[in-house]
Each structure stands twice: as structure tokens, then as C-alpha cells.
């Protein structure tokens, strides 16, 4: 493996009151790698992203990542489970939020780029609309465009399709694959859907709950570019079975 761009070195996160969200989490991620972290709810997988972003302090270990960028906030782009758009802003202004925070001049410079992203995500005609005029799937596309605005090398996604209906979810998953194929960003993708993780990833990290530990790391060697057809192949089924068995065994162990 090449020099990792992101490394978790025995990371742990204990909350006051004794809840252990993450325990001894160890992982190296290579440049351009698509890594999914799967696990049942409450296994601390979303906490990992908050730790990466510095939204919460670690209680043990070290996280390190490097990327070419003008400033720290442009190294990473984050997509959340909810679109978290600002309802008083238009779609275009929502995509430009990261620029607006750096002043008007930056916003003006980035407007062209924002419009390109809206074109790419099929939102050309909605640049002037407000979030409440958009469907859930379209709102999440705006959230993705916003995360891509500064062209970050590292994309962090926290169950981005979890709140969407099945058909919208499939479409957005395919769109994400296509976006990723263009410039192969490093992606950390949190999900509780095993098939979503296998379809998208180079590697799937299976987390076991309470405390959140790495249960298994599965290399996915399915050929790329992938389409939805890959879901019905035997290899795909084998991967999902293996991941599910890790999760099932973990449940048995943690049951009282």
C-alpha cells in the first residue's frame, strides 16, 4: 500500500457518562480509495466522521490526513444524512455556502464552478429555486454539489442516502459512482446498507457495536466501472454474505 492519506491510529472516543462510541479504531486509507464503514446503528460510525472533522475531540489515539488545498476547510467536503440546506437560500446560494463563508469575492469566483456542479447533478433548471420546492433526492444532490464546491480531495459521507426512498437511492448511488470515476477522490462513506457499501467501495470496514471496533476489513475486487448489474453476480453475493456474517456474529457476542 502507498503512503496513506488518512490514518486512524488506535482512535477511541468515550463520552462523559461512560458510553464508549469508538474503541481502538485502526485504519489506513490510500489516496483515491473508496472506503465504506458499515455497521448497525449505534456502532459509532458517524462519530468517526465528527472526529475527522474536529467537531468532537478524541479521547484517545490520533487521526491524521493530508490533501492539497488552499485551506483546511477545503481539504474535505462533507455530505450529511439530512441535506441540511439553508431554507432561505436559493439552490445556487446553498451550493455556494462554503465560498460565502470566505467573503463575497470568493463567492463571485466560485459561481461558475457551482453552476457546473448543478449541471453535472441535473439541477440546471433549479438554480434559482428554494429547497422546499425540491424533492428529497434533489435536495441531497444539492448537498453533494455543496460538498464538491472546493473540489476537495477527501469526501466524507455520513449515510447520505439513508433518508431517501429505494429508487432515488439507487439513482444517487449510480451518480456517485460516476462522479467518483472522474477524479477518484478519497471517499469515506458511512452506511448501514451492506449492498450499498459493496457496490461502491474498494474496501469495506465492518464495525461491531458497543464499543465500536473494526470487526473485519473486506477488499472488494469487483471490476470497475460498476453498474447495478453487478449486484446480481455471485461474487457480489459472496461479499455481502461475508459482511453479514461478521455483523451477525458480533450481535451474538454482545447479546447478554
Amino acid at each position, binding site marked *: 500500500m502507498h503512503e496513506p492519506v488518512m490514518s486512524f491510529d488506535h482512535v477511541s472516543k468515550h463520552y462523559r457518562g461512560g458510553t464508549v462510541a469508538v474503541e481502538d479504531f485502526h485504519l489506513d486509507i490510500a489516496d483515491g480509495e473508496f472506503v465504506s464503514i458499515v455497521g448497525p446503528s449505534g456502532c459509532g460510525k458517524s462519530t468517526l466522521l465528527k472526529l475527522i472533522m474536529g467537531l468532537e475531540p478524541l479521547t484517545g489515539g490520533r487521526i491524521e490526513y493530508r490533501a492539497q488545498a488552499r485551506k483546511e476547510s477545503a481539504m474535505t467536503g462533507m455530505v450529511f444524512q439530512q441535506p441540511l440546506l439553508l*431554507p*432561505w437560500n436559493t439552490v445556487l446560494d446553498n451550493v455556494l455556502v462554503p465560498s460565502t*463563508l470566505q467573503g463575497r469575492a470568493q463567492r463571485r469566483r466560485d459561481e461558475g464552478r457551482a453552476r457546473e456542479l448543478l449541471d453535472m447533478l441535473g439541477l440546471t433548471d433549479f438554480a434559482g429555486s428554494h429547497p422546499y420546492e425540491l424533492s428529497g433526492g434533489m435536495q441531497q444532490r444539492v448537498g453533494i454539489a455543496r460538498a464538491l464546491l472546493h473540489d476537495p480531495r477527501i469526501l466524507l459521507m455520513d449515510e447520505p442516502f439513508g433518508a431517501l426512498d429505494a429508487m432515488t437511492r439507487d439513482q444517487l448511488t449510480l451518480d456517485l459512482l460516476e462522479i467518483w470515476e472522474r477524479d477518484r477522490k478519497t471517499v469515506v462513506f458511512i452506511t448501514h446498507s451492506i449492498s450499498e457499501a459493496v457496490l461502491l467501495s474498494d474496501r469495506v470496514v465492518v464495525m461491531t457495536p458497543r464499543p465500536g471496533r473494526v470487526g473485519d476489513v473486506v477488499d472488494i475486487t469487483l471490476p470497475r466501472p460498476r453498474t447495478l448489474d453487478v449486484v446480481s453476480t455471485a461474487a457480489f453475493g459472496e461479499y455481502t454474505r461475508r459482511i453479514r456474517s461478521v455483523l451477525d456474529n458480533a450481535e451474538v457476542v454482545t447479546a447478554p
Partner: protein
Amino acid sequence: MTAPSPHSPPPGRTLTVRREAGDTVNRRRLSDLPGWLLSSTTVLILLTIWEVSVRTFDVSVILFPAPTRIVEALVEGFTQGPFLRHTWVTLQEIIYGFGIAVVAGLLVAVWVSSSRLAEKIVLPIVVVLQTVPKVALAPLFLVWFGFGIESKILTTALIAFFPILVNATLGFNSTSGDQVNMMRSFGATRLQILTRLRLPTAVPSIIAGLDVAVVLSVIGAIVAEFVGSQAGLGYLIIASNTSLDVATMFAALVVLSVIGLVLHYAVVLGGRRLAFWSEENRARSVAN
């Protein structure tokens, strides 16, 4: 007892329901008419009844002047009398008092909602102060700040301050933690989170507070004038009460109502423009 066989049909004949276009009779109802038309017609009818009863039963002008008599007093008061001067005084008290309440209320709300220490110290005090009937302080303000316009402005400001503070604090605190994390992940500073996220999120709630406060401002100004003053519509009411000029009292009441109504609609319409995106306002635009 025999169990029913599983395939026996339930008793009764076969019924058929068929629905076709244009089945229901579209009877026109009175409630289909627009609300403003219905309510203004009702008011007109009531005014007519009032006018007719006063004339037929020859009710004393001192007890109950007819609507036409009140209109007369109103026109006379504005053209020859002192109405314009008194209205201007009261309007100033309301606007300055309301303005002070808005600025102070918003500042304290920002302070309370951005510091946990301030919240713990200030909020309990606010809750206690809120139960104090603020108008009862008007005589005290008269002693402290004199018979002039200042004591009225301060009474008005005090009354209008609390609903603004409470609603604005509620609004500032209604921002979700996820939204704050989103802004922080894109590099927002604390000040940017306040101005670009928390303040706009609070707008619908602030507007609700302003609406309550603007109506209370009118009450505050009038009560303060009742307590002791040399000018203003409240003063006019007290003065005309002494001379049993009931028509002028009613006329002053009409002017006050118009002031309250105009200010209320100014806040409501301004609020709808500012908070066009809020769920409440969108529900309204769907209903209309």
C-alpha cells in the same frame, strides 16, 4: 351451534356503488364569499343597528353617541381640534418605545443564546420579571422620568421588551446541532454561524414576538398617558372623560385602533416577506 362454512357469502343482496363526474350538487353557500366582505358587511349592519337604536330611543349623547356623531367628532378633531398633535405624540411614544424594545430584546436574546453562563443567570431572572405586571411600573416611571414623553417611551419599551426577548431566544435556540456542524465543517466561525444560520433561523419566531410586542406597545403608551401626561391620545381620553365628551373618547379609540391595526399589518406583511421560506408561511400560501 354450527360454524359457518368458510366460503358462504354474508347475508344480504349484492350492492353496487358507482361514482361519476358531476354527481354532487354544487350549492352556493354564504361561506363561499370572501371573508373580508362578510366581516365588513356584518360591521356595517351592526353600525346601522347602533345608529338606528340611538335615534329611535333618543339615547343621551353622553352615554352612547351614534356612529355619525363619532365620525363628526373625528373629522372635527383632526381639522380644527387637537387630534393631530395628540396622535403624533402617542405615535412617537409607541415607535420609540417599540424600537428600544426591539434593539434591547434582540441584543439580550443573542447574548443569552450564545453563552451558557448568561443563559443560566439571565433566564430565571427574566421568568420572574415576566410575571410582574409591567403597567404597574408606569407610576414609578412617572416619578423617575417626569410628565414628558420619556416616561411613556420607557413604559412602552418595558412592556414590549419581554415578548421580543422570549420569542427571539426561542428562535435563536431552534437551530439544530446538525446545521451548526454543517456550517462548521465548511469553516464557519462562531460569528458567521450567528449571522448566517442562527439569525435567519430565528426570523419567524422574532416576527411572532414583534407582532405581540407591537400590540402591547399601543397599550403601554396609553396606560402610561392615563397615569399622568399633558398630551397624547390617552390624555385626550381622560380629558374628554372629565368633560363628558363621549364622542371624542370614541373618536380617540378609533384612531388608536387604526394605529394598532396598521402596525400589526406592517409587522405581519414584513414578516411574510422575510420568512417566506418558513413552513407556517408556506402553509398559508397553499391555503390561499
